[in-house]
């Protein structure tokens, strides 16, 4: 019995989540603080739902206490012709300016889900020039499904939030399954059809892919990430590289699981994974995150230098 307890305790000590995951978990709990909704099967109807949360969190999730920025944007654009979208766009500008894609790395519940699934030990599909090219797909989806289609249909008085309706796996996971798995919502089960099947398939596809590759939804599909990526050089809270110290060795790009060409570019989710590996300590957080260094590992400076030398011997310093 004592052995079981000591083994369990040492497992826990070795698997304490890093600070980024803790912040992500708090954010997920905060966005879905209406715990009563999971029991009753009803969504929250309070005034806080007029405020958009920074990350992807469907407002049809029974726990959601805020609005989804992407869904709100599509619905606002769907009112084209008879209403405007200043409020939602203003909120997105504000979030982008303050956080940029730090939201993806630290404040998105769906990002947390993908991070957790990626920890499952299987073979992993690594990034390549192909995945880098595929990462531009999200801009295409932003333009077509989030902007053009809702506006075009909105002018004809049809509200079609195309991304939410046909793609969004966060809505399926949090909203659909969150509501449908509650026994009080049996009447909703009768309304299921081909669209639900399609969306469920997409959701399961991304969940399986999240086990095999790092954050496939964030890298290739998420239009919200695409919006925030425009602010990645401007955001107040995030990651920065000291150009005076940087030797362009490329170790940070190699360490990174996202399709970055340099730290802080439009693909960077500002997670800080590259910080321990930098041999000259040129990368650091700016803003409040500087006090929350992710502590990805408990490496000493010695270990960091050894690891950096090993990585630089492996493949040179190309950032391409």
């Amino acid at each position, binding site marked *: 019995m004592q052995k079981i307890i000591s083994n369990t305790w040492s497992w826990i000590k070795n698997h304490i989540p890093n600070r980024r995951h803790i912040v992500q978990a708090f954010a997920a709990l905060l966005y879905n603080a209406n715990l009563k909704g999971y029991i009753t099967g009803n969504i929250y109807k309070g005034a806080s739902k007029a405020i958009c949360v920074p990350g992807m969190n469907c407002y049809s999730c029974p726990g959601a206490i805020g609005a989804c920025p992407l869904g709100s944007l599509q619905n606002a654009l769907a009112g084209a012709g008879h209403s405007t979208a200043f409020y939602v766009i*203003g909120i997105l*500008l504000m979030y982008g*300016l303050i956080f940029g894609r730090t939201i993806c790395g630290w404040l998105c519940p769906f990002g947390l889900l993908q991070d957790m699934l990626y920890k499952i030990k299987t073979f992993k599909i690594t990034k390549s020039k192909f995945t880098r090219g595929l990462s531009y797909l999200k801009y295409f989806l932003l333009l077509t499904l989030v902007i053009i289609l809702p506006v075009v249909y909105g002018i004809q008085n049809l509200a079609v939030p195309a991304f939410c309706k046909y793609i969004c796996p966060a809505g399926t996971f949090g909203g*659909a399954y969150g509501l*449908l798995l509650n026994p009080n919502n049996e009447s909703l089960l009768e*309304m299921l059809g081909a*669209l639900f099947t399609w969306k469920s398939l997409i959701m399961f596809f991304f969940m399986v892919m999240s086990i095999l590759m790092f954050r496939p939804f964030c890298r290739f599909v998420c239009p919200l990430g695409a919006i925030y990526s425009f602010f990645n050089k401007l955001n107040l809270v995030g990651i920065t590289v000291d*150009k*005076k110290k940087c030797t362009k060795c490329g170790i940070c790009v190699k360490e990174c699981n996202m399709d970055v060409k340099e730290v802080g570019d439009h693909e960077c989710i500002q997670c800080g994974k590259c910080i321990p590996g930098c041999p000259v300590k040129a990368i650091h957080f700016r803003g409040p995150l500087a006090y929350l260094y992710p502590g990805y590992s408990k490496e000493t400076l010695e270990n960091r230098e050894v690891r950096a030398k090993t990585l630089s011997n492996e493949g040179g310093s190309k950032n391409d």
Partner: protein
Amino acid sequence: MIASLVLHFVFKDKEKKRTKIEIFDQYDFLKSKKDLSLLENEELALYKQNERYLLIVNIICIVLSLGLLVFPVAYVVNPNNFDAHGDLLEQAISLGIHVLPFLFGIYVVLVVSYLIKEYFMKKSMEVLKHLKMKKKDEEVSQDDSKEKLIINIIRGVIALTAITFIIVGAINGEVGEVLNKAINICTECIGLG
């Protein structure tokens, strides 16, 4: 990318193609990293003359390309040139006759301009190659302060725009619309159509 596209059909030899593209990259690198203040008067005059010629070639290339582009675009946007009920083969041939020569002309202009630019770039590079590199700290701090100023200006503009949009949106009643949508189950979002 344009250089590689243009040169792809001119130089079939991969090695030659790669060398040609590298010349452009090398030129940009030397221009940005070398300390131009060390140029002597004659060399400086030669370098400036080459830069002027490069600029003239760029301007001529752009003007000619755009000029040649006008004709095919004018043909394509004219609805009288296309008739769904007419002879499609004849229309396709006519389209080819009116568009392809101009596109070929643009391609020729690009190739010739790249060859001319390469000549002047090589002359500039001969002047720059023996110069010392700029001191890294000075270069980085000068670039840094300019970049920071621009970034801060953009941040200020975005912040003001965001606040204005939120206030205007609130006055327009958009807050109520977002709330109204969020407190009702979004059947599209959960796959119920």
